[in-house]
């Protein structure tokens, strides 16, 4: 995983709540067997509308998405995270994320930042008034900065360290292989098995 320390970029205000993962990447894109090439599928249905915020020329090259509450609900598809990253987003800000989406994002180095809805509203106003306004998401200091806005955010220390160092979860877990083996030795024999010996 690529490390995330701090990022500064222009933002896209997405004034919608309950942006489900079917909107982020529709199901027909899920047939691909790679982790890349999803950028054209990002918000595919909404992007057919030339006025959709992502299509506005002033939003080209923006890297921070500021969305309404309950972002990433629905399907567990990690493709939603890959699509956002393939498109160029480095961070997503919302007052509430669906659990699975958030877990997926942090495992891929896409920083999901939870801020109060009132702060999200202020950020929307700032970046709508000035599309060139830059938003900084600083994971080292756990702070989001934009013109006239500076606010701290929470992220558990374990996730933060993994992101800052770009650590691979599987390698970390395999350091404890002896503990896994010990647990396995104590599992009762009535537990299900998919293969009959």
């Amino acid at each position, binding site marked *: 995983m690529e490390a995330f320390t701090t990022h500064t970029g222009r933002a896209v205000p997405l004034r919608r709540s309950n942006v489900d993962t079917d909107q982020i990447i529709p199901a027909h894109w*899920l047939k691909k067997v790679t982790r890349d090439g999803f950028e054209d599928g990002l918000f595919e249905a909404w992007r057919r509308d030339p006025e959709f915020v992502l299509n506005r020329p002033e939003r080209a090259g923006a890297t921070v998405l500021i969305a309404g509450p309950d972002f990433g609900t629905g399907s567990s598809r990690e493709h939603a995270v890959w699509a956002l990253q393939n498109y160029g987003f480095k961070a997503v800000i919302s007052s509430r994320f669906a659990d699975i989406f958030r877990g*997926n994002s942090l495992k891929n180095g896409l920083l999901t930042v939870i801020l109060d809805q009132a702060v999200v509203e202020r950020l929307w106003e700032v970046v709508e008034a000035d599309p060139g306004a830059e938003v900084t998401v600083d994971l080292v200091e756990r702070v989001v900065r934009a013109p006239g806005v500076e606010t701290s955010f929470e992220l558990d220390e374990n996730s933060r360290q993994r992101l800052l160092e770009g650590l691979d979860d599987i390698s970390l877990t395999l350091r404890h292989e002896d503990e896994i083996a010990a647990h396995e030795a104590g599992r*009762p024999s009535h537990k299900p098995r998919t293969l009959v010996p």
Partner: protein
Amino acid sequence: MGRTLAEKVWDDHVVRRAEGEPDLLYIDLHLLHEVTSPQAFDGLRKSGRRVRRTDLTIATEDHNTPTIDIDKPIADPVSRIQLETLRKNCAEFGVRLHPLGDREQGVVHVVGPQLGLTQPGTTVVCGDSHTSTHGAFGALAFGIGTSQVEHVLATQTLPMAPFRTMAVTVRGELPADVTAKDLILAIIARIGTGGGQGYVIEYRGEAIEKLSMEARMTICNMSIEAGARAGMIAPDETTFAYLRGRDHAPTGADWDAAVEYWRTLRTDDDAVFDHEVVIEAAELAPFVTWGTNPGQGVPLSAAVPDPASFADPSERLAAEKALEYMGLSAGQPLRDIAVDTVFVGSCTNGRIEDLRSAAEVLRGRRVADGVRMLVVPGSVRVALQAVEEGLDKVFTEAGAEWRHAGCSMCLGMNPDQLKPGERSASTSNRNFEGRQGKGGRTHLVSPQVAAATAVTGHLASPADLSDLTSVPTPAGV
């Protein structure tokens, strides 16, 4: 202090607990399908890792599979490649696979329980959000992303952040015309699509205890639509009776030991939930959605709500956008809404009981002219059982299409899709924009409401059918 059911199952699976780290949980059962696994197997290959426990892993094909002409090559080359990729990966890594055409193939969340692999007190994961289904057995079951799929394949464990506990208690008895689907839609409307976020929900109370395993699976299946990590129901005699004798259920002394353990899987009387919701069963009625998220639901007897009636500004905006997308206006009675398509199936309502109840409504009746009805059994076993009971005949004689098992129109990854502007009554779980096909409009309903809707051509419950001859269909339909 006592512990909740969820906490007991969690505690029994902690491999490692350390200050400042998430608990490392052991995973008893890992279910795989073609859509969310290819990149995970790729990851294993790149790092030279193997599947740690092939004996705790099983795969099936469901999302992409066609429901007609399954003996012919799959027409969509991209779908075909994805299925072939799963077959190659399972062969290479030694994972048991039930491919299209196999007797055990079907929607992954129907296959696990019917094989008896889903058992009380187990941890179950799958790269699919509806893994919550398996919580109906008192398992702790949650959907995961592809990175986590790779993690489980390699280590049979997952580092998991702690959860909060929520009790949803359904008091009293459900009215005769209210199904598990109506109940869960009403629960989601009450707590909201984000209301369960961070929680494992335990469904309890008299109404829940009386439900069959199939109905309990419908309830737990849609926990994710309330944003919950998982949904659970304490195992009881109904659970044990369902499991006994199934292919992978324990036998002999193991069965006795298992049941003894399973009986301990109840929330202690002095356990405290972080949040509690109480639902009065008697107040419920058949429930349908009008909007584009599963929380936007009302009783079938109600009207489409006015967005202005929502106090919360983002809910109001969401309602406005939903009505625009759905082509509905505030105040329109739900019963006046005409549909083009009826879909019965999915991991929510594709089990034998669901097909039986839809068939019961359709028996001796006809699907309305101009309405297409698809019946897609959740698995090959469900299909075979339905054929044995003659249900397929009931469907086809009514004018419905009897299809092969799979996810089908629930998400339209195969050719079963709505066309732009088409409207469905669907027994599936998500009414998101475009979920069943670009521009398609979805109303989530129970199998009974789906069948009655197919007969009348507009949203209806079986109760509407008895007086069909004496009451003209509503104006404007």
